[in-house]
């Protein structure tokens, strides 16, 4: 394999792999947020939305 092929392989697999794994991670975070939703802490003052 020449250097160009090596570099391109790394570029494609590396960039693709990074995007893909972070996308999966972002989905997992969405799931986490769904299972453990945020509960509004009661504030002393100020209107809540």
């Amino acid at each position, binding site marked *: 394999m020449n250097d160009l092929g090596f570099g391109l392989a790394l570029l494609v697999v590396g*960039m693709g792999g990074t995007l893909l794994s972070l996308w999966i991670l972002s989905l997992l975070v969405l799931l*986490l947020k769904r299972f453990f939703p*945020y509960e509004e802490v009661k504030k002393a003052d100020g209107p809540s939305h």
Partner: protein
Amino acid sequence: MNEALWAGFEGLLLGVSHLTLGHLVMLVIGGLLLYLGIRHGFEPLLLVPIGFGAILVNIPLAGLMEKGGILRTFYDAGVLTEIFPLLIFVGIGAMTDFTPLLENPKILLLGAAGQFGIFSTLLLALALGFTRPESVSIGIIGACDGPTAIYVTSRFAPHLLGAVSVAAYSYMSLVPLIQPPIMKLLTTEREKNVVMAPVRKSVSGRTKILFPIVATVLTSIIAPLGTPLMGMIMLGNLLKESGVVARLKQASEQEIANVVTLLLGLSIGATMQAERFLKIETLLIMVLGLVAIALDTVMGLLFGKLMCLATRGKINPLIGAAGISAFPMAARVAQTEGQRYNKKNYLLMHAMGANTGGQIGSVMAAAIMLSVLRGLGIG
């Protein structure tokens, strides 16, 4: 008696007689790093020990980098073993608040896009004739993340450690100068003016605690060779978010990080011996490092534009520039530039999300790279 006097005197002259032009140049470079750190505040925590380390190691006959010398001992114990960058990571994890990212997890993708410079610069380095392991180490400057760059370089091309770390840390502190022109050039007037809604609290304590665990398990299964990196940063974050080990959190982000930063900086400076550092390669690495960070920014912005389009104008592409890891400089740049174009625009929290996403992205990119390289038969 006379002869003994003369011989003793000659001993005093040995240092001077062994001083080469290379040593002198390196003393000046060490001084320059100190100047940048002390006078201009460029990453002083690292540039001061690195600069002084570079001075120490270029004193002829002092032997600090010989076997048994103090800097060599630090280097062998902490850099060769990769322990120093990993310990720094525990501290970074303990300091990092991932909440802005968890509020809007899609922003993680910007953190992935911001790693493009790593891989594209690697190609450039190969084209310029660097070997494959060297090119990997040069590309990793694009991670915009000191410990990651040191971790990967110490594994693949330890002889380039000095140049790679100096490039990584100097350009990280130059992010506020490097990014704005690219941001201006690549976004339209309309995109610059996109106002993003304020970040509302939507993340529970449980999510914050579970995130470092889930992230570690998932990313480590995908790229096992990156487990030390991701594991340490997430361990630090778990110490912070669990809320029950305040002492360990404090030790990680203060005492341990401080001690290790000192030893790491000195060790990196110690790799800058004249005969190793004064090469044309070093200059090339400095140029390639700048290219890497610029390309990171370009791809982050382009991806930001894509997300702007996909969300029908809910995301300001300027925060894409914060997808590079340089934390928190890149996020601050996005806030400053955003408000320069539209006073009513407050991008900081969104940019912090992209920026912490960039931290995860840079570690993930390094992890994937290590695994792919193993697959290709390197490392």
